[in-house]
């Protein structure tokens, strides 16, 4: 197989998973967490483990239009 290379250019993007406040938010500086980290951890008896109460990595629904200001 032969390949004819194009001029090498690479474009790097870092996707930003910013908290909602950063996206056309009215106010809310990114505040110091007013609750400690432990506050958002609890023991799940069914799964027999501690779990963080953090949002999912996967977007559940897409009805916020992040492109609007």
């Amino acid at each position: 197989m032969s390949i004819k290379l194009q001029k090498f250019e690479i474009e790097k993007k870092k996707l930003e998973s910013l908290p909602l406040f950063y996206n056309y938010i009215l106010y809310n500086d990114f505040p110091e967490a007013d609750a400690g980290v432990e506050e958002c951890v609890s023991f799940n008896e069914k799964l027999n483990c501690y779990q963080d109460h953090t949002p999912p990595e996967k977007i559940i629904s897409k009805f916020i239009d992040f492109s609007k200001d």
Partner: protein
Amino acid sequence: MEGHIIDTNRNNFFMLYADCIPVKGYTRTMICDTANGELFFVDNTYYDLILELRELTIGEVAAMLGEDDLPEFATFLEQMTAGDLGTFVEDPGLFPPIAEEWDSPFRITDAIIDIRDKQHDYNGLFDQLNALLCPYVQIRSYAEQSPEALNAILSAYDKLSEFRHIEIVLKYPEDFDENGYRNILSDYRMVSLTFYASKNDREIAHHRMSFIKQTFSSCEQCGIINKKSMSLPGLSSFMEHKNHNSCLNRKISIDESGRIKNCPSMKKDYGDADNVPLAEVLKDRAFTGLWDIRKDQIKVCKDCEFRYICSDCRAYVEDPSDIYSKPLKCSYDPYTGQWEETMHEHQKAIL
């Protein structure tokens, strides 16, 4: 000088790290660095080169290329190693690719519950979702919900802390009771509140309360796909996106009138949640079949370099008679590589 990296590695192989995955699109290739959350875009000829490099040594590939391509080849190798996307190895057999599989111990991984006027049986719904090991719930309210109303919903179930996260999206109320909502957040550590149509100009600092100006009035506003709605998943989510439908896989929803659906915007429903157990619906192949519509099967998307990080939409598609057509509200054209800043009229029409 530019051939130096070729000469010193003539007998070696160059390998992308297994978690840096190239995805070939119509106009360009995206290398998705799932470990560091970075995307790199290169010309498609380098996708072909990456494939050759899996089988041939640097010297063999250099011999295959034309003289005038060697500087580009050297630049490619330098930038790939500088960007920490790959490395030189003596025996590529020692570095097998990562299995392109995805599974989850959770029968349901996320649920949407829409509310407007009708009160659902929240205890029953939470209990069933918990039994299905569902970790994430999103409650979308098209009406205001006072702290008391939220408390009535959340206190209906005494094992709420077994959910990892419950996001409540609700209308910003005219008489915003900050303390009341703060109390909700202190009482329910797994809950976050997102207020839309926000008019407030006071400062409120709480890491689980957010405010947006956008207004929502129905589930028809869901399904927006644009540059800013992309998220870069880790390796596990990447594999889920690749092998399954990235929005509907392991999802179950209750629409505002209490009907069970894949997502509230879908036309087909599977009965009333007051009468039909959610676990029964999961036995229906028509319901779970949508979980497996992959981006590689979807028109246009199959040629898009974003296809394994884009979260798709099956409710609003360009051709409603074809479940394999492109999401209607996507603003990317993989054949030109351009994002549209404004939506087409037909896209706006349903927003």
